[in-house]
Structure formats: structure tokens, C-alpha cells
């Protein structure tokens, strides 16, 4: 009989046509979810279960419950967590075939190695250029110790940030980031303050980028000009002799030493022909180059979408790898120059333990900072239960990279003719613009920064405009105004205070205070207290973390 396989109840249509319940029963299909399950044939022994038992019974419930309320009433509509996952749903075409929707989820799962690499790649920023300077400021031994300790502390804080959404009961936190967690615990205050501190780190990074880009562009232009005009700049700068020149750009500004350098002031403006001085007027690191960059970068900032620039993240990896290779070669060529003076510094060296160590902690707070996006990054890890292990491995690799670069540059810095104090916050500044290998490094970094700068600008724009106006691109004028402000900050810093060490440590300590130390520790303590599991050693330790964060920030102002 052909009626055999017709379902007992047709899916509501015949019943609907019999009633005239008025507008309450109008065909409001928008409110009904398109969820249909084909009738199961349980008589034949069908080995392939195309319809799972749960789906079949859910279908029965959905059909029944939809008869109990008006069609536009959502009281008995199935909530999202009850509907099967997209991978389990078939889409039926009118021609009778059915196909599965491939998981359109863009964040498909990655193996551990890829996640570790993504975390390492995100954390590796321009702070790697300041690590040797930071180690110099803290003293060699103390610097290494601090690097290890700060790395471990920040890893622990990252771990509690990662854990924080899961400790929230009764709420679906699967697409929450850390600012959402702050909003859950602290309300509007938490949301706004975590946003503001996030902005501090982003805008700080953008200012550093501007300073560095001016620096690299200047040096690149200088190299090309010197190469083209065959000018030799070697005697106008204080430095070593030989093929692997290391220079000390500002030998007079030597804070700790009592000895005055025997070779006195350098004449920056060279023994110039009129050509040279004309070039120097038009191509100056602080006066003109920062402004040339505006022409290139301000239009890029105003793009609506940043996905084009996201393709160039590989440049960052290449730059870091190249830097590691460069550092290794330089160390091999220059040799090690290390002497251990524990408390009192001699002229050429610095002591092993210096009071300026908070400058290093400030730099490291930004160097190890990933806390505002770690949840998103680890979400695409295939083995979620290995998240802690993978995060620790990533932090270990980042720490090793920093230690490697820091130690090699510090140790290889030729101390007898030069002072260790000469190590610049951007260690590439210690090499002349005529150095070919360093020129290549500067060019790589310049290109990489030109592609990352619009990405950072996009992140700032999305978060600020999203919070203030609710719309990511309210109007061209709004976006332009924001971009002009950011660019102006960068240009002003590049002109008047191009010391990236200070910019990094201040912005690192500020955003670290909130997003690394205070918020994660407080959130962790509150969630433990709510579960009734807060013990006094744990409370003591986390309060100590908060104090550390505060001390870190306050100490920056006294250095």
C-alpha cells in the first residue's frame, strides 16, 4: 500500500488548515525553525542509521510543542543548545537528495604544533629589539633571572585568563573573550576598563611602530644614498674598526659611567659637501622621515577591512628568524666580551645587579603579553585538554628566543673600545647604516611593520568604534579623526622622544597592571570564592600578584 510510509501525522499542515484561529495562527514561518527529521523505518534492519534516536525524539517534541502555543510565541521553541550540532544536520533539497553542511566554522581545529606556533608568532613582536638593552639595564645575571621569573609569572597569569570563562556556571561562554569575563564579574566598569587598557597596549605598540619605521626608513634611505654616492660614513661615528663595525650612537649620554670617553664628540653632520648637507636636511631621522610616512600609512589605515594585510603575517616570522640568524653570525664574528662585576661597575662594563631592573620588567610585560587574545587563539586547538601544556611550550620557546638574542647581543658587544652602556633600546641602532646584513634586516622589518600597522589600527578602530558608536565604521570622518589622532601621537613621539625602550616599558607596565596582574587575579579569586574553594595561601599569592603589578608600574616612574 502506498500509504504505508506516510507518517501518522503529517507535519502540521492538514491540522492547520482545519482551524481558523485567526491571526495568532498565521503562517509565520520565520518563527519556526526548519527542523525536520525523516520518518524512521524500524521494521527493516537498516544498518545505517541516518537519523539518530535523539534527533528523532527531538523532532517529535518540537512538533508537539509547536502545537501548544501560538506560532509567533517563542516560549516552547527549542533553545540553541538543544538543537544538534551543524555537523549532524542534513539539508534536504527539493529533488530528494540530502547533503551535510560542511562545518562552516572558520576556526577549524588545529593540531598542537600549529597552535604553539601561532602563539609564538603572535607574542614575538618588536620587543625583541629591546631585550639586550633591558638586560643591560638590569645587569647580566639579574637580567636573565628576571626574564625567567617574569616569564613564569606571566605564564601563570595567562593560564588563569584561559581558565576564567570555564569557571562561569550556567552561562554559555563559548565565544567569550577576557573583556567579556571582566564584564560578567565587574559590570560596565570591568568592560570599559579592560577595553581602555587594551587600547593602551595597542596604541603603545602603534607608536613604537611609527618610531621604528621612521628609524628603519631613515637607515634604509641612508644606506642607498651612501651606496649610490659612495660616501664613507665610518669616521663620523664613534665605534669599532674593522669589517664588523659596532657603533655607539650617543656616547655622551652615558648615565652610569664616571669615565669620559677618550674619543670626543662626534660631528653628526659630517664633513659635508653641500649635497650631503642638503640630503641630511631632507632626510633626517626625527625631523622629516616621520612625516614622509604619513603619506604612505594614513591612507592604509582608512581601509574598511584589514583582511588584505592579514595575509602578510608570514613576514613577521621571516623577520624574527632572520634576526636570530643575524645575531648568531654577529656573535660568531665579534666574539664574546663578558666580565662579571657583581656590584660595582667599571667603565666599560655594567654590574651584574643594577637598580634599573624595573625597566627590564616593564619591557618584558609587553614582550610576553598575549592575555587579551589567548582565549581566541587556544580555541582552535584540536586537543583542548592539552591547552595548558601547549601554552607552556609556547612561552618556553618565546623565553628561549628572547634569552638567546639578549645574551648573544649583550655578550658580543665589543666592550673594550665601547661601553656596554651603549647598547641601544633598538639594538640594530648599534650597527651602522652601511652594514649590509643589518640593512636587509631593517628592510624586512620595515615591510613587516608597514603591513602590521594597518592591522593594529583596524583592531583599535573596531574596539573603540564598536564600544562608543556600536558600529565598526560609523562614517569616514569618524575613522579619519581617529586615525589622525593615532598617527599624530606616533609622529610626535618620533620627533621628540624616539626612545622605544621607554615607550615599551611604560605601555607594557600600564596595560600589564590591568590585563595581566589585577583583573585575572581578582577574577580568579572571586570565582574560587563563589565555589567556596578559596584558601588563604591562594588568596595571599594572588594579592601578591596584584601588588607586583602595581609595583611594576610605579617603579617605571622612578627610573
Amino acid at each position: 500500500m502506498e500509504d504505508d510510509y506516510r507518517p501518522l501525522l503529517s507535519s502540521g499542515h492538514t491540522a492547520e488548515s482545519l482551524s481558523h484561529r485567526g491571526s495568532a495562527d498565521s503562517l509565520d514561518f520565520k518563527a519556526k525553525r526548519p527542523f525536520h527529521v525523516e520518518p524512521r523505518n524500524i521494521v527493516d534492519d537498516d544498518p545505517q542509521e541516518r537519523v539518530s534516536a535523539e534527533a528523532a525524539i527531538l523532532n517529535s517534541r518540537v512538533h508537539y510543542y509547536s502545537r501548544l502555543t501560538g506560532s509567533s510565541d517563542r516560549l516552547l521553541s527549542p533553545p540553541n543548545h538543544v538543537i544538534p550540532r551543524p555537523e549532524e544536520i542534513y539539508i534536504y533539497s527539493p529533488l530528494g537528495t540530502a547533503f551535510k553542511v560542511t562545518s562552516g566554522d572558520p576556526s577549524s581545529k588545529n593540531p598542537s604544533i600549529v597552535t604553539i606556533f601561532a602563539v609564538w608568532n603572535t607574542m614575538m613582536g618588536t620587543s625583541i629589539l629591546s631585550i639586550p638593552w633591558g638586560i643591560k639595564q638590569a645587569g647580566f645575571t639579574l637580567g636573565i633571572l628576571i626574564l625567567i621569573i617574569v616569564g613564569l609569572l606571566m605564564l601563570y597569569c595567562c593560564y588563569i585568563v584561559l581558565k576564567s570563562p570555564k569557571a562561569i556556571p550556567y552561562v554559555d561562554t563559548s565565544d567569550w573573550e577576557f573583556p567579556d569575563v571582566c564584564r560578567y564579574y565587574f559590570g560596565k566598569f570591568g568592560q570599559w576598563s579592560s577595553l581602555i587598557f587594551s587600547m593602551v597596549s595597542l596604541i603603545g605598540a602603534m607608536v613604537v611602530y611609527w618610531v621604528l619605521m621612521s628609524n628603519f626608513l631613515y637607515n634604509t634611505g641612508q644606506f642607498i644614498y651612501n651606496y649610490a654616492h659612495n660616501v664613507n660614513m665610518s669616521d663620523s661615528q664613534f665605534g669599532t674598526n674593522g669589517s664588523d663595525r659596532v657603533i655607539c650612537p650617543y656616547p655622551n649620554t652615558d648615565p652610569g659611567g664616571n669615565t669620559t670617553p677618550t674619543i670626543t664628540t662626534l660631528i653628526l653632520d659630517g664633513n659635508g659637501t653641500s649635497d650631503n648637507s642638503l640630503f641630511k636636511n631632507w632626510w633626517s631621522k626625527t625631523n622629516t622621515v616621520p612625516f614622509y610616512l604619513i603619506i604612505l600609512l594614513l591612507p592604509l589605515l582608512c581601509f574598511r577591512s584589514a583582511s588584505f594585510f592579514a595575509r602578510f603575517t608570514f613576514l613577521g616570522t621571516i623577520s624574527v628568524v632572520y634576526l636570530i640568524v643575524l645575531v648568531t653570525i654577529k656573535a660568531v664574528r665579534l666574539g664574546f666580551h663578558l666580565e662579571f662585576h657583581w656590584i660595582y661597575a667599571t667603565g666599560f662594563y655594567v654590574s651584574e645587579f643594577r637598580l634599573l631592573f624595573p625597566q627590564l620588567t616593564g619591557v618584558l610585560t609587553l614582550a610576553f603579553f598575549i592575555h587579551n587574545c589567548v582565549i581566541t587563539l587556544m580555541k582552535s586547538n584540536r586537543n583542548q585538554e592539552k591547552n595548558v601544556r601547549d601554552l607552556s611550550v609556547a612561552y618556553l620557546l618565546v623565553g628561549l628566543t628572547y634569552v638567546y638574542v639578549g645574551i648573544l647581543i649583550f655578550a658580543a658587544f665589543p666592550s673594550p673600545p665601547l661601553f656596554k652602556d651603549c647598547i641601544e633600546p633598538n639594538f640594530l641602532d648599534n650597527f651602522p647604516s652601511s652594514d649590509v646584513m643589518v640593512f636587509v634586516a631593517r628592510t624586512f622589518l620595515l615591510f613587516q611593520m608597514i603591513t602590521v600597522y594597518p592591522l593594529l589600527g583596524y583592531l583599535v578602530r573596531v574596539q573603540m568604534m564598536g564600544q562608543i558608536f556600536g558600529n565598526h565604521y560609523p562614517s569616514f570622518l569618524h575613522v579619519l579623526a581617529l586615525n589622525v589622532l593615532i598617527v599624530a601621537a606616533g609622529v610626535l613621539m618620533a620627533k621628540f622622544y624616539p626612545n622605544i625602550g621607554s615607550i615599551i616599558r611604560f605601555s607594557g607596565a600600564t596595560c600589564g597592571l590591568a590585563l595581566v596582574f589585577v583583573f585575572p587575579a581578582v577574577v580568579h579569586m572571586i570565582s574560587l570564592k563563589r565555589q567556596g574553594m578559596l584558601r588563604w595561601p591562594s588568596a595571599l599569592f594572588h594579592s601578591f600578584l596584584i601588588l607586583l603589578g602595581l609595583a611594576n608600574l610605579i617603579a617605571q616612574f622612578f627610573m
Partner: protein
Amino acid sequence: MSTRLDFKMLYSDGALSHPAIAVLLMGKSGSGKTSMRSIIFANYIARDTRRLGATIDVEHSHVRFLGNLVLNLWDCGGQDTFMENYFTSQRDNIFRNVEVLIYVFDVESRELEKDMHYYQSCLEAILQNSPDAKVFCLVHKMDLVQEDQRDLIFKEREEDLKRLSRPLACTCFRTSIWDETLYKAWSSIVYQLIPNVQQLETNLRNFAQIIEADEVLLFERATFLVISHYQCKEQRDAHRFEKISNIIKQFKLSCSKLAASFQSMEVRNSNFAAFIDVFTSNTYVMVIMSDPSIPSAATLINIRNARKHFEKLERVDGPKHSLHMRMR
């Protein structure tokens, strides 16, 4: 509201002459009682009744089941002061002649202390007015809890509730309208309310074996909750009871729109034949025969004869006789 056809039309057999025995369905407002009642009893929820906030249920007490039990819904511990006063002033009336108290807890509630307080005051009223009542606690909306935490949270609540309910004994269930737990909990409750259910089950087994049925189900009449069943071989679909219940309730809803009432149904194809029919005053029966060669008439005669036998059973240890004695 008055244009809806309640099931009182199906039960207007003069049973209204003696005062009803109540099943109280209580809980905080918003805990899901109205949805639960609507799903179990196939009541249409009109939007306007929900907008009132607190459920004023006085005129809805016509949902009858198991012959003589009347379901009353009350919001306990709501914010509405008018409701609070009404509730307190009517307390003795509400809690008199109560056979069953079903108290619904919302598992998501943030005010656990308050919930327990209101529950305890309901228990006090029960102890004063109907000390022999059975108490059931439903921890509802469990689908909102993560799967791996459900057992833990339910065990915690169950311990607390059992402790608070002394000297009364309460039975706890965890429920959600989005899985089979609601149907199973209410089936267990109804099973405990039928006085001679073991005897019914034995007789049902004999009946099934005599007529060579694959499966025989006994449903409660108003809710189509399965009271008892007998199957002679393994059935593949574990959710078949709930599915049948849903299908028949939808059919009853359609019938009621035409002012018709559902009496019996026969479904037949080349592989099986199913018969659903009125059985006793409280129950329906469903018989599944997998031998299609047996003519329908034969099975229907068997069912009719069995009906007389089961009715005698019910009348002798009449389910509500003991309760009638207790009525003043």
C-alpha cells in the same frame, strides 16, 4: 480563554458532585510550571495568560486525571503582594484534600535560600492540612546545566531537599522539557498514584500473552503517560512511549478544535497492526500485533472482554475509595 475547550467536557460524568482531590503543582513564578502542565496535559497556552505574571489558577482547576484528581497550579513565593495575600488567606482551602504535592525548582535560580524557605512553608501547610500527601520535587530546566555537571548538581539538591522535607518523605526528579526526563518523571509520579498498579501489571501481562501481542501499553487517559507496559521482545526505539504520547496528544488537540473527542484508533500496514482504545475509566490501552493475518475484529473483541475484567479490578479496589473515606 472561555472559548477554549477544556477536557472537562470529556469528563462531565457527574463526578463533579463530590469534592475534588487535588494535585498541587507549586513553585516560584517563572520556574516552568505552566509550560510543564501544558506539555503533560496538552493544554494550549494562550499568550495573555502568561503576561499576567503570576498564575491565577482558580478557574483552571478542571484538568482532571486519574478519574478524580484535579490539578491545581499555584505560584509560590512570587513578587506580587496581591498574590501573596490571596495565597496566605486561602492557605487552608488550598492545602486541604491534597493527595499529591509537586514542587518545581528552577535549577538556575540564584535565590536558593528563598526557594527553600517557600518550599518549607508549603510543607508546613501540608503537614497541618493533608499529612498523608505524597511529596515530589522536580529540579527543572536541567538542560541549562552543562552535561558533565548535571548529576553532581542534582545529587546536591536532592540531599538538601530530602533533609529539609523531614518528617515527610519526598521523591526528587531532575527534569527538562527538552529531554525524556520530564516524561519519565511524570510517568513515575502517576505510577505511584495508582493504588493497585502491581496487580494491573500482572493482569496486563496475562492479557498480552493470551492475545499474542508484541507489546501492550496502558496509558493514563488525560496525559497519555505510560502507566505500565508489557513487551514480548526487544524493541529498538527507547523513546517510543514519549513519541506515541506526543502524537496522540497532537491528535487530541486537533480533535478538540472540531469539538470532537478521541475514542479509538487503528493503524495497520503490511507489517503490523496497532489498536488504541479506551480501556477503563482512567486508562487507554494500546495493543501492537505483528501478525497482520489476525483480523482486527478478533483483537477488538479481545480488548472488549479484557476491558470488562479490568473494570471489575478497578471498581473492587476502587482507586479513590480510600480517599473518599478521608473526605469530610
